[in-house]
């Protein structure tokens, strides 16, 4: 476990993977957008407007994927006291918040023409808004608590508390009646979307996911570098600052 989480080793491995990840991200986006905007046919009821889902669904998925990363990394950091895990969790949070915001905005842009309203306080929309605030709270903990070990511990607790909400988001459309439709992709009887529409959606999800992983590596590298910078400054300053 610790062997793989060694910062120097992470730098080496991530530098090896990064060019591939970046290239793969660009390729998936090119392919995904071509499918989403040109190949995927019009929907029988919603015409072209349904194409909003090719942004909305991947964004909402990444919002929850990001939270999953934070929860797992926080748990590892909390139990095994591994600083790299804490840094990974910390690096994920702003991206998760951004994707949650994107999911909320694109959802609104879907809601107005399709449902007839930008916003409604149904269980899915409300729990997604709560996720956004959980992300903000998580980021605030890291920002306001100066002692990094203490910040990591409290942030981990916030992350675990918020995990309950992520479970609620997933099942909200099944547990309560909502305006938001039930899942089309991940369901027991298979997807209710097919052909090029499904291909476009999967490609866009893949693109978003690859993008997320690429950026996450950059951001963790950044945090590792910053740690080294801090310790070098201490050396040079001789404990002056």
């Amino acid at each position: 476990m610790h062997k793989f989480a060694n910062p120097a080793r992470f730098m080496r491995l991530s530098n090896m993977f990064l060019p591939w990840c970046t290239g793969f991200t660009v390729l998936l986006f090119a392919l995904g957008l071509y499918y989403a905007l040109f190949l995927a046919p019009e929907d029988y009821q919603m015409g072209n407007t349904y194409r909003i889902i090719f942004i909305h669904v991947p964004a909402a998925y990444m919002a929850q994927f990001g939270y999953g990363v934070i929860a797992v990394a926080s748990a590892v950091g909390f139990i095994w006291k591994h600083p790299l895990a804490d840094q990974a969790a910390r690096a994920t949070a702003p991206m998760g918040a951004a994707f949650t915001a994107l999911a909320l905005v694109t959802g609104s842009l879907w809601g107005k023409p399709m449902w007839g309203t930008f916003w409604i306080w149904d269980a899915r929309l409300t729990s997604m808004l709560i996720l956004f605030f959980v992300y903000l709270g998580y980021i605030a903990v890291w920002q306001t608590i100066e002692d990094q070990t203490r910040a990591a511990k409290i942030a981990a607790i916030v992350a675990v508390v918020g995990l309950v909400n992520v479970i609620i988001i997933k099942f909200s459309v099944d547990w309560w009646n909502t305006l938001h439709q039930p899942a089309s992709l991940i369901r027991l009887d298979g997807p209710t979307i097919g052909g090029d529409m499904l291909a476009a959606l999967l490609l866009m999800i893949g693109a978003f996911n690859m993008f997320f992983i690429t950026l996450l590596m950059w951001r963790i590298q950044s945090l590792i570098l910053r740690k080294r910078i801090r310790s070098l400054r201490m050396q040079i300053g001789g404990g002056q600052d």
Partner: protein
Amino acid sequence: MKKGLKAGARKKRRMYLLLTSLAVLGLAVLLVLNALEDSIRLFYDPTEIAEKGIKPGQNFRLGGLVADGSFETHETDSILVNKFIVSDGNETVAVIYEGLLPDLFREGQGVVAEGAMNGSGVFIATEVLAKHDENYMPKEVIDSLKKRGQWQEDDPS
């Protein structure tokens, strides 16, 4: 050796702490959500309305499918008056709504309407929202299905 064992025990304790706090929290949230069930639900279907006996003038949201062949609309004094029946396959409620309907509103599709019952059991809606189902299908597929007579409008089941 001794030190390592101690660190291992501490790790285990932290793991249990995390798992139990998650379990306790989950249970607490579950209980709260269960208690709040009535306010979390977005709408009531016609059967529940019949069972609950909601008083006229009391504001609530009604949800269900627009019954086939029930939708009619006419203009009086340049205001669009829409009449349709919301059904859940068991009970039905007649709805009157003045104003523009969303794009996805059509017979056989889900709607959520906000408003209140009037004295004669008709639901006077102040807002009508269309509810999309989880199906996405290419237009061409539906057109060819219709041509071959194999397409049936969603039946409210």
